[in-house]
């Protein structure tokens, strides 16, 4: 009995000691936001509201998961907005081809995202072009393709029922499917980053690609795969978002690029790569979604929302995201 108690008490401090301060702070900030929100209205602590927020957060969560892989490598993906849109539009388009099309809608959309991700990956890994500029170019190309495809207007075809069900339906009563999808993606990410050699290699490359290469890792292939996964997840996030709003629209991805980067960084992942935990990214996603939601519930005009949003990110980064003093 006493031995058991000793083991537990011995375990807890280690858990706390091992916890990333950034992750703890991010979760602390979430609680603080909820507390501040509940002072404004008691609805903020209701289960309905919290589930609704998780549902909205799941789109950003899926996208941020992919972004995190790329940031862990020390790169960045600026092609999120139009890869998302392309994925959503292609999934909606595929659904137009009868029963087979409807069944393949989601895989087809994700595949389109993977294709754009592969272009990014080849550019970054094999052609050694800075990721910022390759992904920027891919974004413009994806935008161009979608503009040509839609003829300059929003497409008429709306999200197929399967996609809507995935985003808004319920398998488990009370728990939206989008949250389940996010949970599944999160489980896969935790497994990938912690338990597979691919995941450990990603951390290694983020720390020193040179060292990883000299240890026999085919670093270029790993970088390419990471970008492809990021593209696929971005497209998948776009598809979920299309299911939520029941159609794919041209500018739907614009509002997701900066929050996805901010969520990863607020979660304690170093933008230089090699350091960060997936739990932190989850915290960052929830934090950003809550912040946006509370500001809009308080009927803050868009201008004030942007200002507070920016100031909060800067303040939190100054609090725990600073680079070490080098000298």
């Amino acid at each position, binding site marked *: 009995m006493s031995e058991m108690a000793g083991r537990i008490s011995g375990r807890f401090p280690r858990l706390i000691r091992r916890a990333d301060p950034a992750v703890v702070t991010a979760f602390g900030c979430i609680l603080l936001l909820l507390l501040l929100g509940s002072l404004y209205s008691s609805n903020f602590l209701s289960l309905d509201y919290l589930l609704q927020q998780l549902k909205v957060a799941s789109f950003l969560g899926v996208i941020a998961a992919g972004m995190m892989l790329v940031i862990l490598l020390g790169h*960045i993906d*600026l092609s999120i907005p139009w890869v998302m849109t392309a994925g959503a539009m292609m999934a909606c388009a595929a659904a137009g081809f009868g029963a087979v099309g409807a069944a393949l809608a989601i895989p087809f959309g994700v595949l389109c995202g993977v294709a754009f991700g592969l272009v990014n990956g080849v*550019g970054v890994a094999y*052609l*050694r*072009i*800075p990721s*910022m*500029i*390759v992904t*920027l*170019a*891919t*974004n*413009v*190309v*994806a*935008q*161009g*393709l979608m*503009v*040509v495809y839609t*003829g*300059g207007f929003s497409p008429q075809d709306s999200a197929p029922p399967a996609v809507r069900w995935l985003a808004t339906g319920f398998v488990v009563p009370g728990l939206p499917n989008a949250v389940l999808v996010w949970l599944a993606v999160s489980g896969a990410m935790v497994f990938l980053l912690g338990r597979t050699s691919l995941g450990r290699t990603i951390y290694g490359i983020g720390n020193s*690609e*040179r060292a990883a*290469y*000299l240890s026999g890792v085919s*670093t270029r292939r790993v970088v390419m795969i990471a970008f492809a996964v990021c593209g696929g997840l971005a497209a998948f996030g776009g598809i979920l978002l299309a299911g939520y709003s029941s159609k794919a629209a041209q*500018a739907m991805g*614009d509002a997701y690029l*900066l929050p996805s*980067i*901010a969520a990863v*960084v607020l979660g304690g992942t170093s*933008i*230089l790569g090699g350091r960060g935990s997936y739990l932190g990214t989850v915290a960052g996603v929830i934090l950003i979604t809550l912040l946006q939601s509370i500001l809009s519930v308080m009927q803050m*005009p*868009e*201008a*004030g*929302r*942007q*200002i*507070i*949003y*920016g*100031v909060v*990110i*800067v303040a939190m*980064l*100054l609090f725990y*995201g*600073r*680079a*070490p*003093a*080098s*000298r």
Partner: protein
Amino acid sequence: MKDWRYRLADQRGTLIALALFLLMFTIYIANHPAGLTANVAQTAANKGVLLAFIAMAQALVVITAGIDLSVGMIFLLTNCLASWIVVGAPVPTALGVAGVLIAGMVCGAINGLLVIYGRLQPIVATIATGAVYFGIALLLRPFPGGSVNEDLADVFTGKLFGVVPSSLVALAAVVLLVWLPFRRSEIGRAAYAAGSSESAAFMSGVPIRRGKFAAYTLAGLLAAVGGLFLTFFTYTGEAAYASGNGYTLWSIAAVVLGGVSLYGGKGSAVGAIFGAFAARTTGDMLFVFDVDPLWQPLLQGIVLMLAVSIGAFGLLRVRNRLEWFG
């Protein structure tokens, strides 16, 4: 190697950008129904200088191995501010212009402080400040509107002596008054040194903090000049998120086309200007070749993709594979 060959190698990026621009502009003019008239040159210049100013701003920061993702938002903010205060009699107008430029410098200085003394990564810090600047722009102009001293605007968007586009003259003046003194000063060299190797520069006693701070502040100033010109062209202020974002992204593209290394320490703002002109001419070329406007973004993207892929030829010269990981 002789002295001049080093100097030539130093300017290679700028010269390639100039050649690229001249090639594209020649094709454009050769296919333009009116040929190279003063009016065609004026329109092309007015379209080009906006991105050129933003690209110069971006180049200053990129030279220090940083990046400024808020330039487009500073551009919008100063545009909205100018649509309020650059009005009326000559004296208030002049004060207004000064106010707009100072506002831009303050925005740039805030970025610099956060990056240098706050030790934040430039990418995320400027994303966040960009949101703040956009919010302020939206506060100033929730709806497009406002006005500007139209006499002043017409002077800067018209033609000098009926031939030379005055916006180009203004761009040249900014290069002479802001860029060249910066490049030749100790501070400017410190900015280059900080971008090239921060620790080596620090060990050699180079004032890297002052150099970087000056680069960020001047970037704000140049973005404000761009915002001022946008107001001169449109006579209004508008806080359009997509437009600000677009300018930020295209400024990075222009900087890369202009031979400025994203890893810092290499290139010049003059190269970025030609990069910006080249990027703008792509759009114009599609117009003279009568391409369906729907295809314009796609073709622009493909041109951009090809242009940045050219840098990959450098890989063929690599003897030691470890140089891949620079």
